[in-house]
């Protein structure tokens, strides 16, 4: 009991120490201007974030990015899963869908973003780019998950007289969940990148809008505040989806 506990405390302490050292270094580098004006002390960034007059700005940016993130994430996730299921159930389509998703993923977002702005609109572009990233990750994860059912289990359902659909519902799908869950986790930062790049190309508001304009206008604390918020969003999602991943892995493996 005590061994386990002290191990946990140790990990926690060391981890906080690590993060603390990093934050301390950030502050020192900023205070001493070791990296120039572009690297402000952490306290300066936090001070800006703590300025009530700026809260509504941050809140609107955050809300816009989160909305795009949620919409894009869900669309990408669902379409990725559907495409992977389709590929799994129709083997003749699989190779083509694999390739197509790889190609779509490989098209530089900076080339897609302007097109999306024109034809989907500047409001929808961040979500659309996020959806594309998430689509790829969830397609790949779901495909490999669906294909991960051990042969003996497939044989079992066959011998029990199960149909292709029975096998899909009772076997392939549950077996795919752990891999899908890790995919969902990896997809969160990817989706946020999609949102931010989408916002760079002319969105009316969002964290990415703040980032790119603060950069152009040399508003350093604002730039870092927006980046910090983006990191916090990403970290929170990453953490929450990590819990999901953990649960699914325990439940389905």
């Amino acid at each position, binding site marked *: 009991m005590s061994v386990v506990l002290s191990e946990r405390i140790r990990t926690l302490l060391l981890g906080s120490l690590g993060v603390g050292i990093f934050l301390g270094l950030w502050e020192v580098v900023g205070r001493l201007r070791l990296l120039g004006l572009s690297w402000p002390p952490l306290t300066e960034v936090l001070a800006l974030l703590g300025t009530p007059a700026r809260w509504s700005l941050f809140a609107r940016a955050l809300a816009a990015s989160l909305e795009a993130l949620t919409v894009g994430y869900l669309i990408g996730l669902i379409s990725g899963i559907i495409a992977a299921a389709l590929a799994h159930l129709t083997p003749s389509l699989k190779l083509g869908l694999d390739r197509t998703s790889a190609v779509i993923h490989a098209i530089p977002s900076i080339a897609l973003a302007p097109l999306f702005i024109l034809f989907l609109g500047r409001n929808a572009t961040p979500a659309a780019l996020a959806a594309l990233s998430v689509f790829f990750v969830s397609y790949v994860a779901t495909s490999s998950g669906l294909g991960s059912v*051990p042969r*003996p*289990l497939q*044989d*079992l*359902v*066959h*011998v*029990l*007289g*199960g149909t292709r659909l*029975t096998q899909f519902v*009772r*076997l392939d799908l*549950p*077996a795919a*969940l752990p891999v899908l869950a890790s995919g969902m986790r990896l997809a969160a930062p990817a989706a946020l990148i999609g949102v931010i790049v989408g916002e760079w190309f002319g969105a009316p508001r969002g964290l990415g809008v703040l980032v790119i304009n603060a950069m152009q206008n040399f508003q350093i604390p604002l730039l870092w505040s927006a980046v910090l918020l983006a990191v916090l969003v990403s970290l929170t999602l990453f953490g929450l989806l990590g819990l999901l991943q953990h649960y699914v892995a325990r*439940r*389905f*493996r």
Partner: protein
Amino acid sequence: MRISTLAPHSSRSSDTATAPSIRVSEVTKQFQLDDGREIQALRDMSLELGQSEFVALLGPSGCGKSTILRLVASLESPTSGVVEVNGRPPAELARQHRLGVAFQDHALLPWLDVAANVALPYKVAGLPVDVKRVSELIRLVGLAGFERARPKQLSGGMRQRVAIARALILAPDVLLLDEPFGALDAVTRRQMNIELQRIWSEQRITTLLVTHAVDEALFLADRIIVLSGRPGRVIRTLEVPFARPRHADIMRSEAFHRLCDELTDALETPVEETL
């Protein structure tokens, strides 16, 4: 609770007239390896099981025992020759959910608990789950109290017992058992043998059992077929002389030990393996 209280599966009673027999006739089975080489697992293999017969297969590792079971389960098709169950292609039996199997790797679904794993055949067959029968079978294999446990929380032997309960749950017409007791300690194994014996005596399911244990084969089977090394051919057939019902005591009888030694002799082949 004894197995006799278990109602036979509903679809069965009407089928008694057509209770199956298994026929493997002149079957050759070749496998292709990744590197293009071919392996002949079985050559001109023939064997038959009558209705309600219990046959055990003995033979050295890699001689094709599992392959025979997989052919009967329609998981493989023969390279040449015919496999029939009751005069029909074996796939039909599976499709009608009348086949019970427990293979070497127990193949439990890791995300289902013991009860759900045992109940799986009901779900696959689209039948309502007979909860009482599920818990009776779990008790029978000595796992009462573990209904909610998931496979990774069980020892190897406990997992095998779950697989056996699952094989029996639909009261199948044909039972295929591939080393079902391999992971059990001697005592549990013996007790499982006794239970299986009793279940079989009551339901007389046509059964094909693969085992490495000579005494197990002798205790359970009506007939024992000894196969040669790969490619598997029948080198010896033994009608087991013990009357049924058999009591565990026969395993200590002089006759039993003698037959054991005899079968062991028949099996003796060089240990050297070649590619």
